[in-house]
């Protein structure tokens, strides 16, 4: 187990939020350390956005409390929000503003100069769009504006609800780099996602939620061990009898004509696994990451709440 830094930056105790009789999130306990990137992973409707909105005080918890930097967020303290950068999940921006006007508006709302504004604009190559109306931007460019808004005041804590949504893989890499740099600078980052690969790339720890309950909190190394591997191959000589060589390592097997898809335990050697398939003369062989759904189905199916120990 990796030793965590001492200072707790975000502390959530017994957070419960119900919308009438519908559960948003229930009895969530969570701590995020200073200088950590914490991933909040779960499928759609798991309670990620509810949690984040409670953290931003736009939703008020039915029960429980949230502290950021030791201050209760439910007090609606503006000085606390000065330290927080936020990227909402369902990002909507005013279409009638130009990008520049909107950033000016945000800067004025924050009441102090945005020290990293130009730097983040440069990183995301937004300079050519600054004078355009936000309504004329593509979805990806709007997301870039959202990211600039989140980062431009150089906040100590960043709360992000699926920050890479709508961005192409290249820009996702730019975001990942920015997140990792922020972490190095000692910032605390809390991001929700339903993309397992993304979380694996940048997060230190991951909280996994499903159906309104926190299922587990894992170190990223532990999570990586749990995530199964997938092997997909188009075989010239699909001899199914050879698949028995996988033994109980093989979690799932699908076949269509000469195309096979195997779900294999992570702890096994890649070399051994590929070796078996190479013997069947593959035309092509790919090794894609497992999706969140596959991960959930394999390890958390039917679980709603687990012993945190």
């Amino acid at each position, binding site marked *: 187990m990796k030793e965590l830094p001492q200072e707790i930056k975000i502390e959530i105790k017994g957070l419960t939020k119900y919308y009438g009789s519908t559960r948003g999130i229930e009895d969530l306990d969570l701590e995020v350390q200073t200088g950590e990137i914490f991933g909040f992973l779960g499928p759609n409707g798991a309670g990620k956005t509810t949690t984040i909105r409670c953290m931003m005080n736009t*939703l008020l918890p039915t029960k429980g409390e949230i502290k950021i930097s030791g201050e209760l967020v439910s007090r609606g303290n503006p000085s*606390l929000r000065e330290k927080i950068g936020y990227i*909402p999940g369902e990002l*909507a921006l*005013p279409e009638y503003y130009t990008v520049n006007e909107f950033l000016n508006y945000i800067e004025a709302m924050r009441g102090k100069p945005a020290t990293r504004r130009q730097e983040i604009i440069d990183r995301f190559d937004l300079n050519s769009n600054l004078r355009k109306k936000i309504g004329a931007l593509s979805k990806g460019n709007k997301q870039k504006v959202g990211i600039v808004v989140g980062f431009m005041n150089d906040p100590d804590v960043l709360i992000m609800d699926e920050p890479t949504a709508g961005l192409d893989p290249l820009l996702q890499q730019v975001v990942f780099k920015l997140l990792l740099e922020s972490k190095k600078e000692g910032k605390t980052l809390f991001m929700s996602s339903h993309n397992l690969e993304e979380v694996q790339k940048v997060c230190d720890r991951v909280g996994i939620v499903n159906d309104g309950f926190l299922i587990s909190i894992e170190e990223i190394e532990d999570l990586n061990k749990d995530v199964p591997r997938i092997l997909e191959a188009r075989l010239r000589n699909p001899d199914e009898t050879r698949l028995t060589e996988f033994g109980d390592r093989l979690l799932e097997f699908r076949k269509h004509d000469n195309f096979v898809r195997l779900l294999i335990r992570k702890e096994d050697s890649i070399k051994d696994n590929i070796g078996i398939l190479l013997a069947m003369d593959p035309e092509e062989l790919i090794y894609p990451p497992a999706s969140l759904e596959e991960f959930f189905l394999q390890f958390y199916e039917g679980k709603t709440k687990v012993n945190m120990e």
Partner: protein
Amino acid sequence: MIVQFTVRRYWLDLKRHRTFALLAAIVLAVIVAAFGIIYPGPEFFGTFFEIPVIQALIGSIPDVDNPGLLFWFLLLFSIFANIIYPVIGIFFGARILPWDERDGKELIFSTEKSPLRYFLENLLLVIVLIPLVVLPAYLVGVGSLLSGGGGVSSFTIAFILPLFFAFVVLMVTSFGCAISSSTRTGYALGGLFFIVSFTLDLLQQEIDFVKDINLMTQIGAIEHALNGTWNEEFILRCLFLVILLIVLTIFFLYRIDHIKTRSAYQETVEEENDHGKRKIMARFSFIRKFVRTPIESILSRTGWNYPAFRDHLQSSAGLFLIYLVVTSMLLAIVVIVYPGDAAMEVVISDLDIVFESPIIAAFLFGHSLTATLEGFLLYKIMAFHWIYYGPFLFIGTYTIIMRDRNAGYDEITWSMPRTRTRIIMERTIAALVYLWIIMLANFVVLYASQIVLGTYADVVLSDFGATVLTFIFLGIGYSLFLVLFVALASIPRPKYLLVALLSVFLIAVFIPMISILNQDLSWLLYLTPFYYFDVAGIFLQDISFEKVIPELIVFGAVITVFFIAVTTKWIPTRDIA
């Protein structure tokens, strides 16, 4: 089959807006029922409508308490009943073709239904819906007008003739949507058509050509109802226009993109447009140089940092402009057609004619009094400028207060390092400033019209001065009241906005009306702000300003304290996401 789909769509729509529908149904039922209970009988209206206008205005009618206020309430209702047709026409017209992307047209047009069928279903739906929506308002407004001398057939005539006008406005709006793939163009075209029609109506006395082409003039619904005649020519013109617009809408429906694409090409075009806009703005750079920059500089030196106020107020610049253009247009017509003092003697004599006419004549919408243009115009300005004011009041307030929620970035606003109270306060003050600037424009237009009338202005000054001041004071109280309610209600949930608007309507219009009409219910007036600051009394009962102003200050202070208490204690404990 089309009917079946339309009914189903109507049902789904109703289910989606069931809270709204239920509330609206309750309110309308209460209004109609209450009006039925307090209805003073046809004899009352028969007598009342024969009283000269001027007597009603100064409140010197024997045996009737506060007749001036009653006059204004009835006037408001009769105007409301007429105005609701085009407004509903514009609203529903924009729904026939939901070009707006938020309405999910991409999904709708990807179904197996053809766009034509979709269009026809929606058209049929709104044709059924419009009469249902406006009937209750018309029952109260026009129904009471006609009760003095009309009957069911008269009411039917008065009800149906403006409906045709509404259908024309509806189709103009829908046509606007069709030619641009944008709901906004539909609203603009429908609104423009209505405003132009209404303005042309003012010229009807002088220019025969205008009279011939102007549909608004042709309505004359109440006049026809009183005479028991149908305006067949008007109906035929409307039918022709509606059919023509349907054909044109279908034509464009198949010839334009259903979705506005945000392609690189368009971005280039927009950039060019921006460049053009910047060139135009450069010509007005002196405004920035001499007005905006110094003000901003002073404000920044004093630590002024209220973007929610500034930006929200700026968002209504277009509305300010339209309002000023519309009100100035009224003035311009007077100036252009009759400049100077030459016709003033005629004006005064015409004013006498207007004021000495029975009230029923004043209610006739688009009627033909024997007055010449100026007298008629003054009367119109005085009596009908509320037509413009009302929608601007609501739209402006709503636009300012709901700005970020409507645009969807409210989640970002609330994440800023500002208290909820401060954000709400800034927006509310912006809305109030907006309303008061509009009121100032009213004041200027009304007084300027007297200046235009030249040396004879003194003759009418006392009446108009009192009217204007009454409007202003009522406006301040009413708008303060309205804005604060709307501001409070809209923060947690936009749905509450409806409740707020209905509350304002009940307290500011409906309760005073029934408490005046029925003496047994006069205690209800205690529930309204007007009991506590009787500004109408200045005009109606010779109450002095010295008495009213402290009342107004106390009233303002009480609701401001209430507002602050709610924004600091209640709002912070609400979900707003």
